[in-house]
C-alpha cells in the first residue's frame, strides 16, 4: 500500500512535486554551474566550453559537440557504488547529451565541445531528471545560446494511480516510471523513457502530468538564474 486515501507515503498528493531548491553559479572554476536539491537528491552540475574539441579527429567542422557526463558519487547510494562509469550511467549520459543538444545553437561553435558534468552526490529516485534540470541551469549560467531552458520531471503509476515525481519506494514497488524532458516554451519532448506497464490512456495522463511538473520546475530554474544576477542590481 503506497497510496492511502489519495495521499502518498511521503504525504504528497498524486500531482505534487517533492521540495526543490536550485542555485546557479556555485562553482569557481566552471564556466557555468548549478547546485540542485530535489527531494533527497543532491546534484552538482558544471559546464565547460565551448572549448576546442580534442583530440582533433573528434571535431565537427559544422557544429559544437555536446558531451554530458552523468556520474554518481560512490557514497550517494545505500550500497557503496564502485567509482567510474557503469552501463546505467553511460546510457543516462547519452540520452542527457542528446536532450540538451536539441536546444543548443551548436552551429555557432564549430570544432568545439561543450562539456557538461553532472555529479550525483546524494541519490533518491529521479536522478536523471534532476541531472538534466541542473545541467540546463548550468548551461544558461555559462551563457551558452539556447532556444529554451530544458527541464525534466518524471511521472509514473503507483497502486493504479498516475502520480508525479516518484520517490524511491514508489519507483521500486510501483507499476511504471516515465521520465520526460521538455523544452517548456514549445512543449517539445527532448527525452522520454519508460519502464513498467501503462495503458494508452494512462500514458496520456502520465505524460500530461509530467509536462505539468516540468513547467513548475521550469519556473524554479528561471528564478534561480534571476537570483544569481540580483547582486548586480543597481541600488
Amino acid at each position, binding site marked *: 500500500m503506497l497510496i492511502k486515501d489519495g495521499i502518498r507515503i511521503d504525504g504528497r498528493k498524486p500531482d505534487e512535486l517533492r521540495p526543490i531548491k536550485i542555485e546557479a553559479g556555485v*562553482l*569557481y*572554476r566552471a564556466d557555468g554551474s548549478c547546485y540542485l536539491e530535489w527531494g533527497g537528491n543532491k546534484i552538482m552540475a*558544471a559546464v565547460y566550453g565551448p572549448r576546442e574539441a580534442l583530440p582533433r579527429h573528434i571535431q565537427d567542422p559544422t557544429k559544437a559537440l555536446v558531451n554530458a557526463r552523468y556520474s554518481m558519487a560512490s*557514497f550517494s547510494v545505500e550500497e557503496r557504488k564502485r*567509482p567510474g562509469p557503469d552501463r546505467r550511467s553511460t546510457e543516462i549520459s547519452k540520452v542527457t547529451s542528446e536532450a540538451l543538444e536539441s536546444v543548443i545553437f551548436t552551429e555557432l561553435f564549430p570544432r568545439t565541445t561543450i562539456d557538461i*558534468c*553532472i*555529479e550525483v552526490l*546524494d541519490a533518491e529516485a529521479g536522478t536523471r531528471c534532476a541531472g538534466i534540470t541542473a545541467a540546463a541551469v548550468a548551461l544558461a549560467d555559462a551563457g551558452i545560446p539556447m532556444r529554451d531552458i530544458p527541464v525534466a520531471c518524471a511521472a509514473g503509476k503507483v497502486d493504479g494511480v498516475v502520480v508525479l515525481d516518484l520517490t524511491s519506494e514508489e519507483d521500486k514497488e510501483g507499476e511504471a516510471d516515465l521520465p520526460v524532458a521538455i523544452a517548456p516554451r514549445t512543449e517539445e519532448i527532448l527525452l522520454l523513457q519508460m519502464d513498467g506497464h501503462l495503458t494508452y490512456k494512462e500514458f496520456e495522463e502520465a505524460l500530461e502530468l509530467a509536462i505539468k511538473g516540468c513547467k513548475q520546475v521550469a519556473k524554479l530554474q528561471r528564478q534561480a538564474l534571476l537570483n544569481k544576477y540580483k547582486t548586480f542590481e543597481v541600488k
Partner: protein
Amino acid sequence: MEIPEVKRVSAIKKDYLARLAKEKKRPDGRSADEYRPIKIERNIIKKAEGSARVKIGNTMVLAGIKLEVGEPYPDSPEEGAMTTSAELPPLASPEFEPGPPTPDAIELARVVDRGIRESKYIPFDKLCIEPGEKVWIVFIDLHVLDYDGNLFDACSLAASAALQNTIIPNERYGLGENKPLPVGSPPVSCTFVKYENFIVVDPCLEEEQIAQARFTVALDKNGDIRAMQKGLRGSFTIDEIKNIIKRAQIHAKKIRKLLGEGNGKENQKS
C-alpha cells in the same frame, strides 16, 4: 610525452609570480604563513554513513564515508580495514578528464590515507564483528568539486570531519542498533610549496602551477609527525624541511580547533 595543461603556465604569469615572490608577496595578497578561509560543513549526504564538505578559499571537496561488512586481511583477523579513494572529476576543473584515477588522484588518496592510518584515528580493533570472518570496512571517498589548489589539506580535513560524524550501520546488516563510529584524535595535514625559493603554506592554484616542490606533513595532537610526503621535481634543503615542520605545527594547532575531538555524535549522547 605531452605535459598536462595544468602544468603549463604562461611566461608572463610565471614572471609576475616570481617578481612577487622576491618581495615575499603572494598573488592573492596573503603572507607566506596564511591559510585561506576554511569552512567545514558536516552531515550533508543522507545516503552516506558520514560526510563533510570542506572549503579552503575557492577549493571545495566532499568526503563521503560508507561502511560495509567484509572479510578481514589474513594478517589482522580481528581488525577492520579502510580504503581511501579520490575522484578528480571533470566537474572540478577544465584540466580534469574522465577516466580511471590518474597518478595525481592516487597520490592524493594515499597521502590522506596515511595521515589517518598512522595517527590511529580509526580504532580498527573496535571494528571486528566476528574474528577472522567479518569486520567493518571503512570506505573514504573524496570527491573534488572545485579545484583551486591545495587538495591535500582540503581532502584530509574533509575525511577527518566526515569520520567524526560517521555511523556504523548495524541496522542495515541486522547487527543491532546503529552506533557512532568511535574515532580518536584526528591528524591535521599542512601543505607547503616552494617556488623561486619562497616557501608558502596552503598554495592556491596559480602557485601550484609554478611550484618546483611540494611538502605535506600530517601531525597528531601533540604536534608529532605521523606522515609526510614530498612531491614534484624540485628539492628542499634539510633546513627548509625542518622549518616547514615547525611552521606546520603552528598551523595544525589552529586547524585542529576547527575539527574538535572524537565523534560529534558520541559527544551529543554523553
